[in-house]
């Protein structure tokens, strides 16, 4: 199969589309559960982020990669990735600003109920954002194929 035949990659199937439409909300909910609940049960940002990223891939398999690419907003994906790093670093540096050490969660204690726990959950959410958006980015990157890169550069 050559790169020119790429539209043939996608097979429109009512069964797959209907299944994905029914399953995707639950997968996304599960991903958020894994992320939010990582503090008390197995899981956390890395695992939840990967599952959240796989929702987009599921949609791409059901409705076509091109359709999914147009549907996903690049600004949201890059904001998730860089926002995740900023949130993580921000929680760490915020603790230093309050007179503690880097990522010393209990200095937030006077400001918020169970601050250590929610600080950790915030960090997990940040990790989830990074992992999900990088997974989505890699998926679209590979799906676009490498054959086009040299072709595209030669043309203009």
């Amino acid at each position: 199969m050559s790169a020119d035949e790429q539209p043939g990659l996608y097979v429109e199937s009512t069964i797959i589309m209907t299944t994905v439409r029914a399953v995707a909300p639950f997968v996304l909910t599960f991903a958020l559960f894994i992320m939010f609940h990582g503090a008390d049960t197995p899981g956390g940002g890395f695992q939840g982020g990967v599952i959240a990223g796989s929702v987009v891939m599921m949609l791409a398999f059901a409705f076509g990669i091109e359709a999914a690419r147009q549907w996903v907003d690049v600004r949201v994906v890059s904001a998730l990735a860089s926002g995740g790093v900023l949130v993580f670093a921000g929680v760490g540096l915020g603790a230093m600003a309050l007179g503690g050490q880097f990522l010393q969660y209990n200095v937030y204690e006077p400001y918020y109920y169970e601050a250590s726990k929610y600080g950790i959950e915030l960090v997990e959410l940040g990790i989830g954002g990074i992992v999900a958006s990088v997974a989505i980015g890699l998926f679209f990157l590979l799906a676009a194929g490498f054959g086009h890169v040299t072709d595209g550069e030669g043309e203009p």
Partner: protein
Amino acid sequence: MSLSLIEGSLLVFVIVCAIGTALLKNTLAAVIAFAAYSLGISIIWLVLQAPDVGLTEAAVGAGIMTILFLIALANTVNRDTDRLFESIRWRTVAFVAAFVLVIGATVPSLPAIGDPTAPVVGGEVTQYYLSNAYKETQVKNAVTAVLAAYRGFDTLGEAVVVFSAGVVALSVLRREVFT
């Protein structure tokens, strides 16, 4: 060392999948065998009571990796072949067997699963985490406590590595993959 029925069948399944991944001629079949292998390993992690690792293996190994392999495969030329298996090179088999033998020789010296006298359980650091994690971080999952609190700086480094790897891959390949 005795295996329960479920452990034994999982081990056989994982080994068959691993050999299938190595030997199957058709790349698509090999990728699917590899996904099955990852899924088997993730269930083994669950049986060994390491649910965090199992969840990661299932999501990353069986999920994302398989999708990325499939997508990469779709962009390559797949030669049709009548043969089901690769031709076996005996020199490679001998080398792999020797490697497995060396690694396998270390297995009997591992402590039994769940052994309370294993060195890692009695270790000062392990005991500190187990007895202080909830008090100090208000997090019931000790794995999360270590990852996000005690070793938080390392985890920040890992997250930044993932982030920069993604950014670099997207910018080096210079593809406008999003519209």
